[in-house]
Each structure stands twice: as structure tokens, then as C-alpha cells.
């Protein structure tokens, strides 16, 4: 094997096609997009050089600030909730349901494979307030509370997005963390039990420390996914009401394709890329430090 991988020709044959596709599909558009940041215009009308105006506009554009705020708020909250709920499910599968967890796991995982648009339509109907109340408002009215226009205000629309996305994704994190918990050797847990560890102390002293690596992976998965949120918000609220649930990705898309400004759209894309880079760097730095302990 060492001989095979030591041969440059083999390396070129094995890596070449993937590298070529990666270059054409990822690197070229990224560099191209970076070039656009110094221009104003679109494919239809043509482009004109715009200097660093797109970058200075970033700092004065209230929509960018609002979208950035929403993205950070959403990414942090959803990462916490996805991982916490996923971890809760994993503990439930491992220590409560044990071998009979297969059906529950399948059911909770099911929303992961359903298309986002279908889930968004389902939640639109669930939280509908006009012309007729949906199921949630019916329940509220039946217990004596008033109907709420869930998607009609930024705060409540944000709550619906979070509920939907946690419901949609916690099954995935449940399974991911479950596989991590399965890796904890049974004899260590058994020994801890013999030493008197029960319930919370068993969790705190044995299960949690031993599942930290997989928790780290889950956080990386989650934050990288949530910072780039687009489809669920686009399908559920379209970024509204107003721009109150508009993440950076959606603002970028609208700026480039609806407002016909590829240059400024690319500049917002650059901000997103830098955000992702920072998050990735922080996580890898944290993970490296953890390994040295």
C-alpha cells in the first residue's frame, strides 16, 4: 500500500479528478465571487468597477446588521437546542429504552429525511392564524387563550422557526450521539455502578466525560449547518414579516438575484465565508487543546 501511495502517478490519478472537479466547482466560483466584490451590476446589465464601496456599505447597511444578528442568534440557540435535545434522546435510547429503542429512533429520525419544504408547509398549517386558525391556535383558543398570529411578528416567527428546526434535526443528533454513547465500554459503567455511582453522578462522572468527543463533533456539525441556514427559513417565513427573520444567506440571495446587485451580494457572501472560517478555526483550536489534555 505504501508503495502504491508513494507513486506520484497513482496520487495524480487518484486525486486528479476530484481536485479538478473541486477546482472547477468550488475554487473558481469562490475566486470569481471575490472578484465581484469590487464591482456593481449583474449579468443582465453588465458590471462597473465599484472600488471598495461594497465593503464600506457593509458597515452602514442596517439590513446586514439585522441579518447578522438573526444568523448569530439562530445559530447559537439552535446549536444548543439541537445538541441538548439530541443528547437527551441519545441518553433515552441508551439507558432507558435500550434494545427496544429502534422504533422510537426511526420515528424521531423520520423528519430528517422529509424535504424541508414539506416540513415548512406542515408548520405553516400548524401555526396558521388566518383565514382560519391552525391546530396550535385551536388548542390555545380551547384552553381560553387568544389566537396568536405566529408568523405575523418577528419574535413569534423566530420561535416557530426554532421549534421546527429542532424537531426536524434532533433525530439526527440523537442517532449521532447514540453511536457515541454505544462506544462507552459497558464494563466501565458497570464498575462505576459497583463503586456506587447512580443516576446523575454516573452521568456527570462517567457518561458525560466519555462522550465529550462526539459532543464536540455534534457541535461542529450543528454550528456549521445553522450558520448557513437558508431553506427552512425561506420556505417557512420567506424572511418575514418585514426582514425580521432574514438570515445573511437569504439577504445575500435577495441582494444578488432579486435586487440585481451581484457585487454587494458577493460581499455579503464573503462575510459569511469569514464567519464560517472563524467558527471552524475556533472549533479546531478548541479540539486541539482538548487532545493535548
Amino acid at each position: 500500500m505504501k508503495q502504491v501511495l508513494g507513486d506520484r502517478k497513482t496520487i495524480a490519478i487518484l486525486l486528479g479528478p476530484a481536485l479538478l472537479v473541486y477546482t472547477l466547482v468550488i475554487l473558481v466560483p469562490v475566486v470569481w465571487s471575490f472578484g465581484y466584490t469590487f464591482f456593481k451590476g449583474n449579468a443582465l446589465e453588465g458590471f462597473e468597477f465599484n472600488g471598495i464601496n461594497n465593503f464600506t456599505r457593509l458597515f452602514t447597511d442596517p439590513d446586514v446588521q439585522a441579518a447578522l444578528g438573526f444568523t448569530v442568534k439562530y445559530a447559537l440557540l439552535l446549536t444548543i437546542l439541537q445538541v441538548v435535545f439530541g443528547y437527551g434522546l441519545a441518553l433515552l435510547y441508551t439507558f432507558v429504552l435500550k434494545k427496544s429503542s429502534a422504533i422510537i429512533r426511526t420515528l424521531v429520525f423520520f423528519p430528517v429525511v422529509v424535504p424541508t419544504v414539506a416540513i415548512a408547509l406542515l408548520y405553516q398549517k400548524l401555526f396558521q392564524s388566518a383565514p382560519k386558525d391552525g391546530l396550535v391556535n385551536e388548542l390555545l383558543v380551547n384552553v381560553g387563550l387568544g389566537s396568536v398570529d405566529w408568523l405575523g411578528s418577528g419574535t413569534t416567527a423566530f420561535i416557530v422557526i426554532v421549534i421546527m428546526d429542532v424537531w426536524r434535526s434532533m433525530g439526527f443528533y440523537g442517532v449521532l450521539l447514540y453511536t457515541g454513547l454505544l462506544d462507552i465500554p459497558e464494563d466501565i459503567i458497570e464498575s462505576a455502578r459497583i463503586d456506587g455511582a447512580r443516576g446523575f453522578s454516573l452521568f456527570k462522572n462517567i457518561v458525560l466525560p466519555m462522550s465529550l468527543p462526539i459532543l464536540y463533533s455534534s457541535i461542529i456539525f450543528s454550528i456549521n449547518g445553522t450558520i448557513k441556514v437558508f431553506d427552512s427559513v425561506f420556505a417557512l417565513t420567506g424572511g418575514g414579516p418585514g426582514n425580521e427573520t432574514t438570515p445573511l444567506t437569504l439577504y445575500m440571495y435577495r441582494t444578488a438575484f432579486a435586487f440585481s446587485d451581484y457585487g454587494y451580494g458577493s460581499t455579503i457572501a464573503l462575510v459569511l465565508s469569514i464567519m464560517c472560517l472563524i467558527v471552524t478555526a475556533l472549533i479546531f483550536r478548541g479540539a486541539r487543546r482538548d487532545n493535548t489534555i
Partner: protein
Amino acid sequence: MTTAPRSRRLRRPVVAALAAVGIGTMILSGCAAGGSSSEPTKLTYLKNTENTNTEPVFNELAENQCKTENTALPLEVSSIPQADLDSQIQLLASQNALPVMFAAAGTPAEGAKLDKAGKLLNFETELEKLGVLDDIEPAAISTIKNLYGGNFNFLPFQFNIEGIFYNKTMFAERGLEEPQTYDELVDVASQFEADGITPFTASGEQGWPITRLISSYLFRDLGPDALQKVADGDAKLTDPEYVAAAQAIADLGAAGYFDDNIASLDIDSSYNELLTGKAAMMYMGTWFLESANDPEKNTVGVDNIGFMPFPAVEGGAGSIDQYPANVGLPQTFGADTYTPKVADWLKCITENYGQVSLEQSGAISGFKSKEPVTDLPALTVDVQDRIAGSTESVLWFEALFNAKAGQDSSKNASLLVTGQLSPEDFMKLLQTDLDAG
């Protein structure tokens, strides 16, 4: 001795890499949209989902009057939501992959861009060649030229004026007359509200039915050039007299004169509120005639819906006779896909659309009808008379806005009438968009 094998070794990967680049390029060019260069095999028509007027007329044309043209080039209709239309058209245009016929331009500025880029057919030239230019109402051509960059580049499948549709019985039961001033309109609304009837229904999900009220107030208060002044930079939306218009409409919301949960109400549900007797009034364009004249949708009775202009603002510079006029969300033909078979279709449409549209649903278009259509619903006749009698028209709120201001206006209107956004902030948001260009 050693250089020859090395160069051979090097040459092979280079050749392989070049071959791979070649294949990659071919694959990518295969992915790229061609579209325009090849002759269309179907009359592809991309429209906005919200437009329910044109498809039934086209289907009838395809089955009857334009059967020959449809056999040669079959009609194929597809729809996407209006909110995504501009971006979709923009993408297709940049890839030279526009459909043969399509709806475009949520704002006239976007339509003018397409025209400037040479993507649209010049109907003045082509219809003249086909000998059917006279089948279009001159007023409709003039409206299109005024709105979309000076050329006759969109077709008037609708020719609308806008105003307030209302439930005649509800007015009569309370002894109410059509309000002539804005204050009277608010008084009327308060009476309906007191009786537990929604005074105004409007789709907050769409937003523009609310912003139309702001522009109507502005035109009545400041005169028909109120928004032209903003476009020319002679006035700003943040000026007190402009904010006053947004305040007036926000006050309607604060008084509870709109539907409950208005932010989530879609346009069809809004129509339904008026047509099932749950609401007393609705500001809308006359494309609504199609629904108002449909007994299945209109359960309060086809003769029970009336139409009135937006009332005057006392002391204002505008007149109650100035109706907002438009051709709906405009539809057009692509310049690159215009072939003789498409020309046959265009000729047939121009000759027959007006007649079929009037006969089928009483909807008024900018196409002349070949023969007088009798037995039209009273509401349609009333609107036809108003169009004929109107000497001056005005635009709508977003007509002269750029795409971002247009979208922000519609998306934030429901926040304005639900008290989540102040009139000052609403107008400031839009003025910022306009200033950004």
C-alpha cells in the same frame, strides 16, 4: 539517460490532465443553458402563481381560436410565486434561457432593465408587421410605454384601474353612501367595526394591498405627482406630509379596521373575506372582476359588489377621478425565441384575447374585443365606463421604486398596520433603499 523516461513520465499526466480539463469543460458547457439558440418546440409560458386570469383564457384560445397555432407549437404553462419571479427571470435572462412568453418585472424598473438588455420583443414593430396593432387599446399602449422605459414591450393581458370594492347590501342596510372624503371613509369603517364586521380586508402576506392605500392617500393629498417627486429627488418619503399618509393607514390598523391576523392573510383568503360577506370593503385592482363575477366564489351575489374610487382627502391637491391604472403584472415575449410559429400565436392572441377574456369572466384587458359583448355583469360595465371616462391616471406606491424598496415596502406593510413598525421608520426604511439606488 535519465531525462527521457522522466519527461515521458511527466508528459502522460500532463496529457491526462489536459484531457480531464477538456472533458470537464465539455461537461460544464453541457450543463450551461442553451435555450435561446434552438427554435422553441413549445409555447412555454411562465407566469406568477397569483395570476389566475390569463391561464383559463389561454387554454380556451389553445382549444378553439388558436387551435392551429397550438398544434404547431403547443402551449405549456408553468407558475412560480410572484415574490420569486424577478430573480427567476433575471437568472434565465442571464443564461439566455427565457421562456417564449413570461410574466416579468414586479417593479417597472426591472421591466425597463430587461428591455434595455434587448431581451424583450418590440410589439409596436412586430404587431404592425402582423397587421394587428390596431387590436390593442391605444390607452393601454400609452400606459405600458409610460411605465416600462418608453417602448411597447409588454402586453396588456389586463388593463386595470384600482379602487375600493364594497358590499352594496352592507352599505344599504346601514343607510351608507359611497364615501367621498377620507374622513367619511373612516366614519363608514367605524360603523362596520361597531357592528362586528371587518371594515377592510387586505392581504398582509402580500403587503401591496396595504401600501396601495398609502399611495392613494398620497395622490389625493399631495397630487398625482406625489411619488414622481420622490423618484426625481424633489421630495423624500421621510418628509412630514409623506409620513402623514403612512400614519393615516397605520391608524386604520390601530383602530382595528383590518382583518384579525392580517399579517398572515393571503390574497385569495382576502378576496374570500369580501366575497363571503365577512368584510365590507377591499382595495383592489379590477383584475378582481374575474373573482367578483364568479358565482361560485362570490356567495354574496354578483350584483352585490360595487366599485368606488379611493375618496378625496379634504384640502388635498388630488382628485377622486384620478384612478391608478396599470396592466397588472406585465407579460411579454422573449426577443430571442420569436420565430414564425411564435408570431402566429402572437397574432392569434392579439386578435382574440380581449373577446375571450370579456366573455369568459368579464375581465377587462387592453385588447379590443372584435364584437360587442353583451350581457356583461353590471360591475364590469361600471368599470368599463369609469375607464372610458377617466382622463388622468396615477401610479401605485412601488411603481417608481427600485427592486429592494419595492420588496421592503410590501414585506413591511403588515408590520405598519399591526403597530410593529412606526410610520416614520417605515418611510425611513424605504427612503434608505431609494437613496442606495
